[in-house]
């Protein structure tokens, strides 16, 4: 009997027929499948009633790891195409973000997606882990926190070309990490409507104020004064470098 590989689950999450598959992050599918795999949590669909596929709407889910996956699969059952954007690294020793549950969820989710017949033009639901920037790494830990950047997602022009006019952020409460705020601000500046859906209440509201330049600036100042510190473990800190700066290119 062959050992299942997470790599084999990638085509289910990034099928050739969907234009949004190009943005699915492959790195998680290159990791070994954990031996212990807990099932994904059940998802109460009623909290997502305000989100309708083929209404010119894309979705960004920003919930903790496996919840994000479960929510994405619930939206898939409603006709959306879930696109995983998890871009976490894996290291030696104790990792700051435990990625095993997400790896197991991606494997389980591939089976679910295989049973759905999603339309090739199904609108995208981009899946993020709300825990991606949480925590502090001790020097003995492997800091595998990560950020999402505008280049990780399609541009507003690309979304509009697919008849998408608005984006709904699905989250719990009202928190939003600054990296995602940067992405959504860019989309909003380029003409997409933004709203947020709180899965706790099922209520949706516009995101205009949260994405305003003034709030963005104040948040930056607050972090400078209170949150940011020199990071000594190769992760994030006072200066967040541009990832492409070393990954490949040159001038």
């Amino acid at each position: 009997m062959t050992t299942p590989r997470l790599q084999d689950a990638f085509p289910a999450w990034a099928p050739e027929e969907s234009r949004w598959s190009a943005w699915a992050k492959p790195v998680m599918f290159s990791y070994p499948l954990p031996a212990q795999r807990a099932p994904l949590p059940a998802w109460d669909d009623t909290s997502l009633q305000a989100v309708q596929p083929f209404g010119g709407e894309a979705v960004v889910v920003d919930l903790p790891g496996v919840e994000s996956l479960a929510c994405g699969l619930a939206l898939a059952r409603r006709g959306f195409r879930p696109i995983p954007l998890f871009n976490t690294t894996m290291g030696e020793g104790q990792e700051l973000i435990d990625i095993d549950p997400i790896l197991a969820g991606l494997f389980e989710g591939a089976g679910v997606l295989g049973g759905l017949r999603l339309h090739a033009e199904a609108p995208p639901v981009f899946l993020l882990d709300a825990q991606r920037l949480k925590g502090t790494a001790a020097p003995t830990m492997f800091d595998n926190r990560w950020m999402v950047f505008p280049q990780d997602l399609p541009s507003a022009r690309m979304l509009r070309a697919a008849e998408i006019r608005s984006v709904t952020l699905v989250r719990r409460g009202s928190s939003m990490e600054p990296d995602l705020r940067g992405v959504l601000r860019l989309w909003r500046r380029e003409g997409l409507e933004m709203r947020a859906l709180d899965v706790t209440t099922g209520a949706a509201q516009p995101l205009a104020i949260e994405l305003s330049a003034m709030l963005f600036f104040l948040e930056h100042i607050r972090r400078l004064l209170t949150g940011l510190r020199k990071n000594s473990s190769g992760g994030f800190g006072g200066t967040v470098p541009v990832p492409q700066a070393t990954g490949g290119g040159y001038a």
Partner: protein
Amino acid sequence: MIALSRRFESDEIRDIRRRAIFEAGKFDPQTYDEPTLAPFAIRIAPSAWAELATLAERSAEEIREVEQALHEERRHWSALGIPRVVRAIIGAARAADARDARFCRFDFHPTTEGWRASEINADVPGGFIEAGAVTRIVSERFAGLACPPDPARALAAAIARRVRDAGIGGGVALVHATSYADDQQVMRRLAAELTELGVASHLASPVHLSDRRDGCVLATNGARIAAAARFFPGEWLGNMRRVDRARWARTTAAVAQTNPVSALLVQGKRLPLVARALGLRLEAWSSALPETRPIGLRRFAPTLVPRDHVLKPVWGRIGEGVAIEGVTARADARRARAWARVFPKSWVLQRRFTSVPVGERGMLEPAQAGDVVHACFGVYVIDGRAAGIYARVARKPLIDGRAQDAAVLIDPSLEPDLERNAAHGRHAPLPRMPEVHSNEPHGAAA
């Protein structure tokens, strides 16, 4: 001399992408709305590859000598534009020596004046996956074309030699910014190549290296370390806490390194200015690098950038901050000029060159149909030998973060003598060529 291959069919593009991800370990196949891999390869004549390889090897030799000389000239480090904290790290670290495996990459452009260089990446150049494993995958589609050497294999071999020579036991710490999957993919590629050579390696951040009485160990898993391969930019080491900076200098002194942090002395774009002031010779490198000028008092001039120059940040990478009139977006160019006026020592002026676009029928044929791109060729030199090449291509004559990666393959049919002689039914000998590789797969991503 240089030409694009045919454009790949859509099923070929899908297959190359899939194998690039899961065989080569390229986990950034998409950026913004574009795939990062170009839908074609670049063919280059053996003589062009030989010319680039020779130029890069000669330049690397000069650069190493200049690095050694600069290491003794601490009072000039500030003039190189190196931040104070980073200067302190270089000062505290041991000087580079024969224990260290050295790698760098020179970036060349085909221009109306021949090959011109835009920069040297002497500290932590990337692109190892694209120049090695991805190029091998692409080459399988082109019988008769040769693969250039794989720089990841060459670097792994150089490190493995140092580990064995050290004879202290232990593995290689693959030091990188652990939060970035794009950076880690390079380290995982190197790990796969080291595994093929029977050398253990460990993913690590700079603070994971700790010193014990019996040697250097990793704080995460206690593994003993004989060499530190750094893909963490030297200038970012300055972001660490003071105690971590001191420990980095202390722990890496006892192990083989690639690259030692003194590589930063020759990484910045102010190098030609300081080398000139000190009378250090860079003949080969200067023959390819356009004239570089300081901003100086031009910061007060109504026109900061003369028409025949471009403005570049001293520590810029992947084309960020470069202002080229008529190419760079106006708002970006305005921002670059404003910063250059405020911080003139962080910027330089470089004489502008005219990039020659490349199409399927070669260069200098503007009326070609199909893909026509501007290309920049990154040539790796590892321990003094040319060790690989790949290209980045763009529709505009500025290679930046939105440019695509293209495999470079060596095509004897592009040899000018061969073409001429073939027309006359004669055969000409090929020029001396650096090592080429077969496209046999080896060392899948870890």
